[in-house]
């Protein structure tokens, strides 16, 4: 039996420590990991809890992140509660196995500390790895600060392991900005947290010798499509369970989470859509602009990146006051508009007001995104709104040195 970990009512934790405490309280059976900056302390923490008797589980050392996720797939198919952590290059190396985990419907929890992808090699935070995972069939939740990293990691087990879902879940937080900055975190007591997460319920576990099963079967053109369709349906339908679990978490803790968070959107004329720690920066900028210049600025933030909340994004943007929206993508878009721009545009296309939507690529490799820059971008949206058409290129770069960089233009309002 694992020892109880004494916690204060309010702790000072960084995002990594918060996530590792959540793994401990969920009493994860197996962590197979190949630690990588900036997510190292998450699995390091798990290893230390195991060694000191705070978890009845096993830390499996492997030779690579491909091996780490493979170990997780094996342990999860065997019938255990399984989690790991990674970032950046490690995430990229895991990618092949991420698709195996989701296709095999194994509710592994992966805490991802978002970091840029090489080349050039970079350890700082951007959303390249999170975006790389967006077609992998995992549920992707996004935490904007350490408290949320803790809360959402606990929720991730509940969501993924739900018998109607049975899908793996990633909980994202920004490298360094969230993972290494200590803030006040209000944790649950061990027994309360475990009660919320609940005992792991094995499904088709390989350690049930009375009922041998084949995991990881091959299917060709005669079966593959049906299995992928069923998997996609489960991911789309997980929205209901995510809402339920978040709502239950609110009744337990008073902390409210939604698949789409919005700030000051009630009467907003201009808005920023962003992910991660930038959401708090943009929200502060919106608050200050409202006070200082009377610009009705608001912020929309997908808490759940996959399944993408087209329903709630549309609902949030479908308001007659809203004229111009800027989607902020913190990942090099590789010859396209940013992913957030594409998806938010798709969601907004059928709204009655159909706001003007532009795209900023920003913050690559950990380039700082400050309140002043968020204000400038809000004001630029205000200029679009006043002119009745987009006055800049549709895609621009924010915070990059050198001549102004932008692509595609339109005069359509």
């Amino acid at each position: 039996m694992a020892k109880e970990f004494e916690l204060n009512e309010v702790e000072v934790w960084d995002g990594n420590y918060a996530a590792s405490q959540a793994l401990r309280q969920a009493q994860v059976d197996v962590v197979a990991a190949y630690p990588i900056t900036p997510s190292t302390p998450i699995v390091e923490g798990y290893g230390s809890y195991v060694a000191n008797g705070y978890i009845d589980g096993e830390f499996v050392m492997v030779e690579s992140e491909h091996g780490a996720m493979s170990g997780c797939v094996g342990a999860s198919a065997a019938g255990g509660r399984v989690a790991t952590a990674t970032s950046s290059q490690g995430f990229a190396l895991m990618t092949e196995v991420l698709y195996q985990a989701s296709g095999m419907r194994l509710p592994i929890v992966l805490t991802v500390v978002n970091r840029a992808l090489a080349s050039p090699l970079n350890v700082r935070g951007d959303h390249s790895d999170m975006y790389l995972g967006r077609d992998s069939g995992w549920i992707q939740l996004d935490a904007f600060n350490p408290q949320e990293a803790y809360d959402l990691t606990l929720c991730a087990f509940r969501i993924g392991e739900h018998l109607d879902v049975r899908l793996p879940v990633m909980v994202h937080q920004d490298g360094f900005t969230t993972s290494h900055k200590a803030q006040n975190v209000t944790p649950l007591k061990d027994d309360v947290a475990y009660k919320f997460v609940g005992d792991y319920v094995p499904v088709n576990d390989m350690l049930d010798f009375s009922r041998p099963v084949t995991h990881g079967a091959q299917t060709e053109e005669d079966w593959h499509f049906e299995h992928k369709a069923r998997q996609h349906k489960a991911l789309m339908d997980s929205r209901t369970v995510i809402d339920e679990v978040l709502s239950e978490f609110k009744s337990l803790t008073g902390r409210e989470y939604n698949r789409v968070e919005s700030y000051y959107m009630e009467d907003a004329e201009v808005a920023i859509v962003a992910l991660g720690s930038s959401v708090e920066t943009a929200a502060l900028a919106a608050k200050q602009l409202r006070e200082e210049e009377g610009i009705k600025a608001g912020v929309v933030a997908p808490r759940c990146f996959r399944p993408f909340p087209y329903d709630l994004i549309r609902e949030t943007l479908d308001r007659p006051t809203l004229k111009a929206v800027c989607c902020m993508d913190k990942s090099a878009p590789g010859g396209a508009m940013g992913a957030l721009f594409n998806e938010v545009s798709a969601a907004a296309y059928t709204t009655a007001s159909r706001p003007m939507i532009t795209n900023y690529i920003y913050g690559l490799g950990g380039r700082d995104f400050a309140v002043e820059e968020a204000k400038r971008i809000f004001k630029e949206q205000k200029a679009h709104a006043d002119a009745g058409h987009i006055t800049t290129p549709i895609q621009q770069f924010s915070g990059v040195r050198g001549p102004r960089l932008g692509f595609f233009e339109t005069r359509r309002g």
Partner: protein
Amino acid sequence: MSTGVLGTEKRGIRELGAEEKVGWDEVTRGVVLNSFEGDASNVAHQKAEERQYADFNSYTATVASWRIIKPVYNRDICIDCQNCWVWCPDTSIISRDKQMLGIDYDHCKGCGVCVEVCPTNPKSLLMFSEAKEQEEALAEWPEKKKKEKK
């Protein structure tokens, strides 16, 4: 119905890939396939013909159509050494109490490994065209090779 020796109700009852085609809402979650029906705790101690194989077990599927040449077994020469049973990559040599009974033609793919490892002279297993009748093949069996004198 199975044509192999020790044919059971379940073995090779369907062509692989010709299963009832079901929709996305009917396929198993996570492509998980059950091997047996009911409690299979004791299955390791049962002989194949005693096991309750599930429809998703490859035991119930036949891949005979994949084969273009087949091994034919000659009981008159076999010494029951079990080499073919050990080496067969698809458990298609059927043996009971260390006595070779024959070939599971529902699952044999005609690789020829059993013939390769057969130590008798002449061999007790030889490859023939898939279309060749069993009796015809046995009638064509070669004589014992004499050692060449130096």
